[in-house]
């Protein structure tokens, strides 16, 4: 909880600290899984950029800047290494992008040795959420069991919503019973905060939300990408090698806001809202819809330092609006 004060102490009376199902965050900002790797590339870009500028007074410690986040959410980690899909894996679309990366990752053991070692050394105070993925219900718990040995991990985000896998991913998140089964096996494997990330590609997202809440989810992330397609007319072919992918960016912000709004009314666990957030106003809109925290995803690609600045911008927004505690915004839509 003292983390809440270190960056902005004295500068403002606004309380930005939030609690997401047992995960204490000094501000509501995290990043969307898969857009930020494990933070190292962004931290090093920040460090190099500040070092290259002519302003000598700035602190160039990458850890300090990563710790501007309320929490870091890693890319999805599976038990075995996954090679992901063929390229092209992305396509730009109006106000958005499609991706079909396919959760390429080096597996939990290498993740622990490389990424977690780096994070423990360089950002030890940063709350860390590890995104966990699997092809089947049974593949999640072994990942968590391995990560339980790592003290730097603070929480898990369970990915039952990736649209880019032939087996697992979203298939686990569209059926309330299966989603609950994954949640139960993860809940049994850890006492750490458990966040379940939901797909919008369902008839009624609140049905899934209620089911995973009942199965032990301490918080929900929403939304994962919206299933979509882009076509090259001249070639008469899809723009993605996989054919279809997941849509992200400002194009899906209204979809995401509605999902957060509806789930806020349907469940009592806290929500992490994401989908097209680019600035403080976007983030505040998600909180008003019912999110306790927010994640920046696709915007990281255009502006790689936006997530590291967002909490400061949200604080300024609160100051300008006379908001003393950001928690008062959560679900604060007026009738």
């Amino acid at each position, binding site marked *: 909880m003292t983390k809440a004060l270190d960056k902005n102490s004295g500068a403002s009376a606004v309380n930005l600290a939030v609690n997401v199902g047992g995960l204490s965050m000094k501000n509501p900002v995290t990043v969307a899984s898969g857009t930020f*790797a494990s933070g190292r590339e962004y931290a*090093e870009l920040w460090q190099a950029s500040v070092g*290259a500028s002519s302003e000598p007074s700035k602190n160039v410690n990458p850890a300090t800047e990563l710790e501007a986040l309320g929490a870091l959410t890693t890319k999805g980690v599976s038990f075995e290494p996954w090679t992901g899909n063929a390229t092209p894996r992305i396509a730009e679309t109006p106000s958005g992008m499609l*991706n079909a990366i396919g959760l390429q990752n080096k597996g939990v053991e290498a993740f622990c040795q490389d990424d977690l070692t780096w994070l423990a050394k360089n950002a030890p105070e940063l709350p860390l959420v590890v995104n966990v993925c699997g092809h089947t219900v049974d593949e999640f718990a072994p990942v968590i069991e391995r990560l339980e040995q790592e003290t730097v991990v603070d929480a898990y985000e369970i990915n039952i919503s990736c649209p880019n896998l032939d087996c697992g991913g979203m298939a686990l998140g569209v059926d309330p019973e299966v989603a609950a089964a994954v949640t139960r096996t993860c809940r049994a494997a850890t006492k750490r905060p458990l966040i379940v990330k939901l797909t919008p590609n369902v008839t009624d997202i609140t049905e899934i939300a209620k089911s995973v809440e009942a199965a032990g989810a301490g918080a929900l992330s929403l939304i994962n990408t919206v299933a979509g397609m882009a076509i090259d007319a001249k070639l008469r072919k899809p723009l993605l090698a996989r054919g279809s992918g997941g849509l992200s960016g400002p194009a899906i912000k209204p979809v995401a806001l509605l999902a957060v709004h509806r789930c806020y009314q349907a469940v009592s666990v806290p929500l992490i809202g994401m989908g097209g957030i680019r600035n403080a106003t976007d983030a505040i809109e998600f909180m008003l819809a019912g999110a306790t925290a927010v994640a920046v995803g696709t915007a990281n690609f255009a502006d790689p330092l936006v997530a590291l600045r967002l909490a400061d911008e949200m604080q300024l927004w609160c100051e300008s609006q006379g908001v003393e505690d950001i928690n008062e915004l959560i679900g604060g839509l007026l009738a």
Partner: protein
Amino acid sequence: MCEAVGARESLSCQAASGVLEPCEVLDIGSCDKNGGIRRLVLRAPHAAIHALPGQFVHLRIPHFDDHLLRRPFGLYRCNSAAGTIELVYQVLGAGTQQMTSLKVGQKLDIIGPVGRGWSCAPEAKNVLLIAGGMGAVPLYPLAEQLKAQGKQVQVVLGAQNADLLVFQKDFETLLGAENIPICTDDGSAGFHGFTTERAAELLKKSSFDAIATCGPHLMQRGVALLARKAGIPCEVSLEERMACGIGACLSCVVETTAGKKRACVDGPVFKADEVIWND
């Protein structure tokens, strides 16, 4: 992985991490008579000083907010004393179309210099460069560097037609016209045929000890095959759709003998032998 030594002067394979650098448009212009190929000069001192041949910058196009992604552009000429970089690009899609409206004095930002550039067998003495279309862009700074090192360099320069041979003058000024064999797909200038055919002829006549190529994917695959047959080490510069440009998102991966590698920071230059060429 990095066989060459680390000093900058040695043309070693380097993976410099990029910097987010604000920059300013200093000059714009057309390179061909139809305006389909454009040049853009930016004040970007950090990139200008630190760029190595074969690296690129990841550029955010201003006033283009409904198109989210940055665009990667190979570095053409860098002037470290003046702090300027020059990009040459073909107008192909919405992004490059939007870039034609850039004005002198306009501000934008880049991440750069990014990527692992050419290493090109540092011990090589006689180097063949094979450039198809816009593939000439990253090969120009390599040619400059090889010349400065006193090496023999020939550049097969190919384009669809004579009008699109926009790099011919610069390469000829640098290396002399006798070292720039030209070819065009339609025969409107130089050899009538593909760069790979022209390169195959040259390989029969002279002995090269290194090859570097950039151009259409199929052409690079063809060059890689020629090089393998001739037993000459070859480097290629690959292009994949890219999002972050800093190695985080895994969009731009290339299939290699050592698994998937990221074109943005593990490339864009790869050893031809490590690439698993697909159709």
